[in-house]
């Protein structure tokens, strides 16, 4: 249902007006048009609310009480950045929306080129989302990452996105181009000052060529008071393998929206993730997977563990256009509610215009299986620990699907730490 246009502006929207005017005044001629167009597109929609179908379960209008001031350029200490937890990587640091070369590793790697940009992206790859438009209207900076055709990057590329300061907001625009036949592992982390309240809004465009092999791990470990919005739009070439994993742990409010489109035939995409939520966290994962060509395969598997008064939202839409015959799409969402005040809202959607397809989705919601718990306790394991084992096992099923051994270990360690079960050994 369309919202009436005459809704009064919220405090956050008023703050955004002032922020746009200020940043627009400093924008160079070259980018002014793009900033203005994005702003107009945002203003036409306003901050999304529950009557906007795609944001039905995440009413940003009421959850975003204010829009914090745009963060200025700062220089945090190198050890504040956690990133991929000590793995050996090529690090790219983005602080407050801007590329920070001093915190990044030396980037002289064959096949990998990194350039600082103003954060403006060429196209928004079919996303018409208010918060993606807002990103481009207020974008502070960004980078462009290019991986040459047939390049096999030997170490993970680590993108650390850090918001420094309290009551500030950061907007970064990133473009990633991965050439045909290239192979890369990207580990991206979203973090900030512990206990700081801030807002981060990231927009990333990824284009992957033919016959590439890309693994992408996102670690969302923002501060517990942060609001996190990430829009990721992905185009995949033919015969490519693309694997994406979201680890969702931080932020009081988070929204990860993925727009994925198959542009070449016979490509496989695996989208997976785990959300670990407690207190009054609200975490939203929203997917739009568009099969536009024939013979592609997509897998969407997400698992959430929701405790206390937290709320998990999952929306997944698989669209199969008429040309996309022989599509195979499978989506599965499983949620464990650990407390009587936890909440899950799931909307797995299929939109199918081709007949020769196999599509399915499933969703389960419930508490820990009493039979399994009994089984473990009957073997002398105390209840608290038995519960942890079952939660870990539940999440591990999704984690293990991500075929990068070092990432699986990292994710399991982070999961155990969240469960306060560091001493527990997996397997």
């Amino acid at each position, binding site marked *: *249902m369309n919202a009436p246009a005459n809704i009064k502006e919220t405090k956050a929207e008023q703050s955004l007006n002032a922020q746009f005017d200020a940043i627009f005044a400093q924008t160079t001629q070259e980018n002014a048009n793009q900033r203005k167009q994005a702003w107009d597109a945002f203003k036409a929609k306003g901050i999304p609310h529950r009557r906007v179908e795609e944001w039905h379960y995440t009413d940003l209008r009421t959850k975003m009480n204010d829009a914090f001031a745009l963060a200025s350029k700062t220089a945090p200490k190198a050890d504040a950045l956690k990133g991929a937890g000590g793995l050996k990587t090529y690090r790219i640091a983005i602080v407050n929306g801007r590329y920070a070369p001093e915190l990044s590793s030396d980037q002289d790697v064959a096949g990998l080129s990194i350039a600082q940009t103003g954060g403006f992206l060429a196209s928004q790859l079919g996303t018409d989302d208010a918060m993606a438009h807002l990103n481009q209207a207020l974008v502070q900076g960004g980078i462009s990452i290019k991986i040459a055709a047939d390049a096999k990057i030997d170490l993970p590329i680590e993108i650390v996105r850090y918001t420094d300061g309290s009551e500030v907001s950061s907007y970064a625009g990133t473009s990633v181009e991965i050439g045909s036949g290239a192979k890369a592992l990207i580990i991206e982390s979203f973090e900030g000052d512990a206990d700081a309240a801030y807002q981060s809004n990231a927009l990333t465009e990824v284009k992957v060529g033919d016959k590439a092999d890309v693994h992408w791990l996102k670690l969302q470990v923002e501060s517990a008071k942060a609001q996190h919005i990430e829009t990721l739009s992905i185009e995949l070439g033919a015969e490519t393998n693309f694997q994406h994993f979201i680890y969702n742990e931080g932020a009081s409010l988070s929204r990860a929206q993925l727009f994925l489109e198959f542009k070449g035939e016979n490509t496989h995409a695996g989208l997976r993730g785990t959300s670990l939520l407690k207190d009054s966290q609200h975490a939203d994962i929203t997917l739009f997977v568009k099969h536009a060509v024939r013979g592609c395969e997509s897998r969407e598997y997400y698992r959430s563990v929701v405790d206390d008064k937290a709320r998990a939202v999952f929306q997944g839409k698989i669209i199969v256009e008429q040309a996309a015959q022989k599509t195979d799409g499978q989506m599965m969402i499983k949620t464990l509610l650990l407390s009587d*005040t*936890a909440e899950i809202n799931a*909307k797995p959607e299929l939109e*199918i215009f081709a*007949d020769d397809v196999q*599509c399915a989705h499933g969703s389960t*919601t*419930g508490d820990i299986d009493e039979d399994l718990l009994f089984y473990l306790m009957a073997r002398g394991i105390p209840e608290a620990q038995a519960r942890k084992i079952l939660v870990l096992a539940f999440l591990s099923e999704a984690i293990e699907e991500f075929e990068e051994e070092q990432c699986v270990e990292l994710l399991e360690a982070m999961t155990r730490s969240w469960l306060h079960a560091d001493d527990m050994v997996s397997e």
Partner: protein
Amino acid sequence: MAAVQETIDQVKAIDVDQYKYGFVTDIESELAPKGLNEDIVAYISAKKDEPEWMLNWRLEAFRRWKTMEEPTWARVDYPKIDFEDLHYYAAPKKREGPKSLDEVDPEILETYKKLGIPLSEQEILAGVAPENRVAVDAVFDSVSVATTFKEELAKAGVIFCPISEAIREHPELVQKYLGSVVPVSDNFYATLNSAVFSDGSFVYIPPGVRCPMELSTYFRINEPNTGQFERTLIIADKGSYVSYLEGCTAPQRDENQLHAAVVELVALEDAQIKYSTVQNWYPGDSEGKGGIYNFVTKRGDCREKNSKISWTQVETGSAITWKYPSCILRGDNSQGEFYSIAISNGHQQIDSGTKMIHLGKNTASRIISKGISAGVSQNTYRGQVSAHRKASNARNFTQCDSLLIGDKCGAHTVPYIESKNSSAVFEHEATTSKISDDQMFYCQARGLDEEEAVALIVNGFVRDVIQQLPMEFAVEAQKLISISLEGSVG
């Protein structure tokens, strides 16, 4: 195999004219002037001899309706309806107050005979064993023309009559329950219905009574440019049981006709209501011209503990269907069920599903939805399952399967799953596929031709739902499915 052969014969027999209920009854009608305003609302109310409270209720609904906007969220596409270009009341001209069936206009009796609906009690008695009898309320355009077996039902204490009669004869029941499940301002079409509804059925089953026969209403739209707004209210008092059937057809016309009904079910403690629909409104021609717009609000309220409401629907007709029979599981241990077959062919658009709202403890619901799309139709399942904070041990199982026949149609699944209780267990699964070549090969290798093979596979696909229908309906539904899909193969 006999059943399949019968299906094929049935399809062949209607080869030319697919929609066999498309004839027009030539009868003099009394029409309200076109358009909608407070005078028309008062006109309808006066026609029905309604008490003042009813008129006020309608007027309030009308005033609310004027402030509302048509919903646009459903996946259906149609030109804007001109609500001023409709007759909101159409009734066959009455001769001097028909008191018995003999006095009902023979043209109307002939119509129902052609539709295969027996209105004469003797006829039914002669043919069928007594326990298989069905009491029928026949609604022709805006009025109920006949209700059978009233006396016999009255002996059991069951009230089965047109709702206009109930408003006059049983105001205490109507006032208590009307609008208590679907509130006056529930949604655009329900509010419109509340203002202008003309007839429909009223059922009250007293405590502890198992209704001695199936109750049924047969809706027929005849007049052009009319909207049919029927209102059904079924109340099953403590420990009672009723099975209710609904059928509908309309003549073939080039223009679209509006049907906006409201059905309210109330099940009190230990009561059980089984509501079955075979919807076969005129779906429009092969070019997508004409057909019924079917915008219906159906909702059941399991108001007290251990109650149960079960919806079964076979949707084959209508140009556009917008319909979500729902259950509010308020009472502890109450149960809701929804079994649906939705078949779209030609240019039909269906956006249908259910809502299961778990409020009470230990409530259970089950949803089985089978969608079949063919031709250039669009078929959407839209459903909601939610558990309230206090709905401990709520349980839902949902299965929606879609079958695509041809590469120009669409099948969509839009479930909303909302749980606020950790002990609630919800399971949802959905699949979409076409009839596989393997299945076809298997059948054809055993000597079935292509049409027979498809009919067999489709019948297997919808079997779970067909089994839920009362026997008389199951046979009809099975035939209807084959007819609806006629011409979609090959």
